[in-house]
Every structure is written in C-alpha cells, then in structure tokens.
C-alpha cells in the first residue's frame, strides 16, 4: 500500500470508530387504548417511554429510538397479530407494556419465537416468569403473587379470615385467585367460595348477591380496572359493606380510586409498586408526567414502563448493540436504578425485583386535594415481595 492509501484508510478508520455507537432501536408500546384498562396504561405508557428515552439522552449516546404504539383491545388474538406484524414487517426490536395477562402471555410466546425482547409492565400473571417464562421476557412492575402477599396477608392478619372470590374469568383472574387463596390458607384463613364473571363485565349485582349469601368476612375482588370500580360501586349500593362484609380490592390502581371517589373508596387496602407522592424523586417525575398528560398522575404501570425502558437503554449502551441475548444478559447481571422505583434488579427468570408498598385509601377528610389518595401502611422489601425463584417452575432456572 502506498502512503496516500494508508493515510486515507487511517482517516476512514478514525471516522468509523467515532460513529461506532449508532444503534437504531424500534420500540413498540402495545396496550389497551380504548377499553377498561386504557386509563391505567394507554397513552400514559407511551409518554413514560418517551420520558425514559429523553432522560437517558439516547440520541446523544448514538441510540436512535423510534416509538410506535397500538391498541390490543384486551384481546390476545389482536395482540398476537399486532406483535407478529411488528416483529416481521415493521422491524420492532422490543415490545413494552401489554396489560391483560392473556394478551401478555401470547406476546411473550411470539417474542420467544422471534428472539426479541418483551418488557411487560401492565400484566399480572405469575406465569410470565413461571411456567411460561422466556429468555427475552422481563416482567417489571407487579404480579399476582406480590398482590396476594401484600393485600391478602394484610387482610387475614387484620382478622378477615373467610374469603369469597369474585373473579374475572380469564388468565389474570384465575392467577390472582389461586395466589391469594394460597396466601389466605397459609396464614390461617379459609376460602368459602368463588364465582367467575365474564370479562369485561358491567353488572356484578348477581355475583355480589351470591357473595353476600356466602357469609364470608371478606369478598376478594380478583378483577381490575373498570370491573373493580363497578364491583365496588355496586357493592356499596347493595349495602354489602354496611352489612359488615369487607371488600378486598386485590388489584387497584390510582386511576380506579380517582374514578370511585374517596367517599366510596376510603379504607380500601391495596398493594402497589409506585405512588406519585412517595418521595421527592417520584414527586418530581410525576409532575413532569402530569404536564404531558393533562393533570393525571401516573399509575404504577406507567412508572414500570419508564423503569424498564431506562434499564433496557442502559443495556443497549453497555452491550453496544440491540442483540437480545447481549442486552438481556447485561440487564440481568446489573442492578437497575431510576427515579421511579429507586434500586431494583432483574432476576434470571425475568422477574424484576423492587420494593412493594401496602397503602390504604384516605378518607375525604384526610385528603388535601385531587390525587392525594393514599397513606402508606408498610413497605414490603424486594426480597420477600415476589415469588421465590425455585417456586415459579421456570425452565430457565437451573
């Protein structure tokens, strides 16, 4: 090679080395944008994902992230079709959120098939990191075990021993009922009966009547979103709470409390992974979120999307690629740190570990204004909040 060619080659090599870190990532936010879970996920998750990308300053680090979104209408078949289309035709690298456990399990399978990454924030079923775990799937925010362990245990220890379940008839409801029954029986309570309602439902009067007739101390609501709101309203109407039976909202989001109003919701005990007014970090983050969302405060699902995308982007930066195995390996071997959950870690079965919190809904007198709804009863540390690794039945765990 003569001198001129060598210089040119050297210059070219230097230029290429400068732009080596240029990864294009396409991120898809798939959730319910129009049905009963639209307020707890929906557009808020897209906003949270964008906030994560901006806060991480991805563009300056050479990671170009494109965000797209779609509505799965809480139907696993629709979710599957969209996921396939996204992976095959649109070149999506990672799917985020996906509430509705049946849809989440479907998307997890497809993600495994295509060798991509799935960061779930909205779904609840423990099967996502249990029997149906997958190498590219991470379950971030909460699951039915954490809910059962939090609310279930707290209620039984407060004296509510006999349980009757009102269960949404799909994967999530079954999982939540099973996990909570187990906790109830372990702590000395008993399950006197259960009834499954079609999902989504509108009128729960018939099922509540059966629950009332069972004579249980507490009616466990193994449903979520609009279903829970309606069940609680109708329970108040039928004098169930006045007659002495307690209601255990096993999965309640702050948007549900907002819809119910403090008058109806006061006293409810619930387990969440995030509350906007928990500490200075969450307050600051929530204020920024609120500005983009017209005043609504974030739910734990939104916070989970932010945390997951942040950790994912760190993984892409560290691995210098978006290749699934490299990124997932980094994510599982390094702790996560962000404004919303603080410190956390991603376990080998895909379960993200962080502290969970037991809250109680304030009474109207105790609340100082809109969205000031919770008081903290206790913190459940990450080590005990989630199902132990060996109990899940995940094939990835040796």
């Amino acid at each position: 090679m003569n001198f001129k060619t060598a210089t040119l080659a050297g210059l070219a090599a230097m230029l290429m080395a400068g732009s080596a870190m240029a990864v294009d990532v396409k991120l898809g936010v798939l959730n319910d944008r129009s049905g009963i879970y639209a307020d707890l996920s929906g557009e808020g998750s897209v906003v949270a994902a964008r906030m994560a990308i901006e806060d991480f300053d991805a563009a300056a680090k050479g990671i170009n992230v494109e965000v797209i979104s779609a509505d799965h209408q809480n139907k696993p078949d629709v979710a599957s079709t969209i996921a396939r289309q996204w992976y095959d035709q649109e070149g999506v690298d990672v799917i985020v959120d996906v509430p509705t456990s049946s849809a989440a399990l479907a998307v997890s399978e497809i993600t495994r098939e295509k060798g991509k990454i799935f960061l779930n924030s909205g779904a609840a079923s423990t099967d996502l990191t249990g029997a149906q775990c997958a190498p590219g799937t991470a379950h971030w925010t909460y699951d039915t075990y954490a809910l059962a362990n939090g609310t279930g245990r707290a209620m039984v220890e407060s004296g509510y021993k006999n349980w009757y379940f009102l269960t949404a008839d799909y994967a999530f409801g079954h999982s939540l009922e099973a996990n909570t029954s187990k906790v109830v029986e372990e702590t000395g309570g008993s399950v006197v009966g259960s009834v499954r309602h079609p999902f989504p439902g509108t009128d729960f009067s018939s099922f509540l009547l059966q629950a009332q007739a069972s004579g249980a101390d507490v009616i466990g609501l193994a449903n979520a979103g609009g279903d829970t709101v309606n069940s609680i309203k109708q329970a108040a109407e039928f004098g169930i709470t006045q007659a002495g039976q307690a209601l255990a909202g096993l999965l309640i989001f702050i948007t549900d409390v907002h819809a119910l109003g403090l008058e109806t919701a006061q006293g409810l005990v619930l387990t969440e992974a995030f509350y906007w007014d928990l500490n200075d970090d969450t307050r600051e983050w929530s204020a920024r979120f609120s500005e983009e969302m017209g005043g609504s405060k974030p739910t734990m699902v939104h916070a989970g999307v932010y945390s997951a995308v942040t950790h994912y982007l760190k993984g892409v930066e560290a691995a210098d690629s978006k290749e699934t195995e490299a990124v997932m390996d980094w994510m599982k071997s390094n702790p996560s740190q962000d404004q919303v959950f603080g410190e956390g870690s991603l376990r080998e079965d895909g379960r993200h570990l962080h502290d969970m919190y037991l809250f109680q809904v304030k009474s109207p007198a105790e609340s100082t204004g809109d969205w000031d709804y919770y008081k903290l009863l206790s913190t459940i540390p990450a080590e005990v909040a989630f199902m132990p690794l060996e109990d899940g039945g995940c094939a990835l765990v040796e």
Partner: protein
Amino acid sequence: MFELLGIPPQALFGQLLLGLINGSFYALLSLGLAVIFGLLNIINFSHGAQYMMGAFVAWMGLTYLGIPYWGALVVVPLVVGATGVVIERLMISRLYHLDHLYGLLLTFGLALIIQGLFRNGFGVSGLPYSIPPQLSGGTNLGFMFLPNYRGWVVVASLLVCFGTWFAIERTRLGAYLRAATENPTLVGAFGINVPRMITLTYGFGVALAAFAGVLAAPIYSVNPNMGADLIIVVFAVVVIGGMGSILGAILTGFGLGIVEGLTKVFYPEASSVAIFVIMAIVLLVKPAGLFGRTA
C-alpha cells in the same frame, strides 16, 4: 325448604329480581330500537352511543348546571332526542331510498365517532354520578336486600315501555305513524306531514335511549364504553323478539334479563353468551322472531 339444583329459593328469587332489573334496561333500549326499526326501517347502530350520551349529558347537567336527577330525567331525553332529530334530518333521511345496510353503516360510523370523542374527552375509568337521596338506601325483602333505586328502575321502565306501546298501538297518532310506514305516499296524500313524523319518531326513539342512559348513570359507571357493551345484547333482544314488534321487544327484554339472571346462578361464566345462544335457536326455529310477523 326445597332446593332447586342446589340453589336455595331465597338466592333464586334474589337473582330473578336482579334479572328483572337488568331486563328493564334491555326492554327500554330494545323498545327504542324496535320503534326505530319497526316503524322507520332504520337500523340504528348508534343507539348504544345515544344511551351513553344520555348518561353523560345527565352528568354534565349535574356538574355544570346543577340539574338534579329528576330534572335530568325530563331534560336529557329532550336534549339528546334533539340531536337525534338533527342527525336524522341531515344524514339519515338521505339514505331512505337505498338499502337498509347503508343506514346501518352510517349509524355505526356515528357511534364510533361519538364514542371516540367522549373517550378522548373523559377517559374510560368512568365519572361519578350519585343516586338521588330520595331513592338511596334499600329495603330488606327477606330473601335479599333490594336497593330502592333498582326498584325504581323497574317501575320507570315498565311505565315508559307500556306507555310507548299504548301510544303506538292504541292511539290515533300511533295509527298515523304505523300507516305512514306502510304506505307513505297515501298517508301523505291525506295531508299528514310524513317526513316530519318520521323525524320526530326517530327523535323519540333516541330519547328513549337517553332516558335509559339517565336511569343507568347512578348504578353503572358513566363511561364512553357503556353503550358499546350493551348494544350488541340489545340487538340480540330485538332480533329474538321480532324486528317489527313493539310488544315483542318489551316482553323479550324482560324475559331475557331473567334468563341471564338464572344463568348467572347456575353457570356464571356463560352469562354473557346465553342470550346469543337463545338468539341462534330462535332464528333457526322461528326466523321472524318470537313475536314478529313475516313480511
């Protein structure tokens, strides 16, 4: 006390009563649909959205204008009925010379637009609307605790349903309307303003849906999807009752509410499917519906 298939009679009566209450919503809504289809031959798919608008306008009336529940029962059907009149005049009337299905497409599209607008404006978690104080609380009937409001729903629904049936089947105005739908040219020749009658009838059908919406606001969540969930079931009710029959729609509405209530006791997971199974059976055995007349 005897037990029917393992269910004690108290539980059964309670469920039957609840089924009757749900049935009154089905009856009211299917009545509006039956009036609009039976008399005007318009397949009004926006009926569910108009029911939802009734609930929302009641909420808006309370929140912004302080109109209480009792006032809303009168004002809201008028307001929403007026929007129905506007829709009919501006859009639906242009499709009369075409196949029924165009009316279906138009009203379906309108329903999607209305629902989407409300969803953008109000979210899906629902807005609170409290039961009026005069109807709050309940009565212990022995076999169940009946909230007074739900009892009122059954009474109001029965009154409005049979009032409407009487007006259409037994009064002169109803006779004009029925004649106009059979032979509009001839009736028009007698000096009766047929297009105006049709417009007002459509408005009346929409007002019925809005009335059902106001009744529903205190007990069901006031959210943009409330109509979408209900409209499919209501169409099934109208089909089973017979598309042209007013009385059929009313009786089938109450009857199917009771059937759904029973399904919830014996096999709850199937409760949302039961009505469609019955619809399939009825269509196979008697395609014109239980009370329908074959054309």
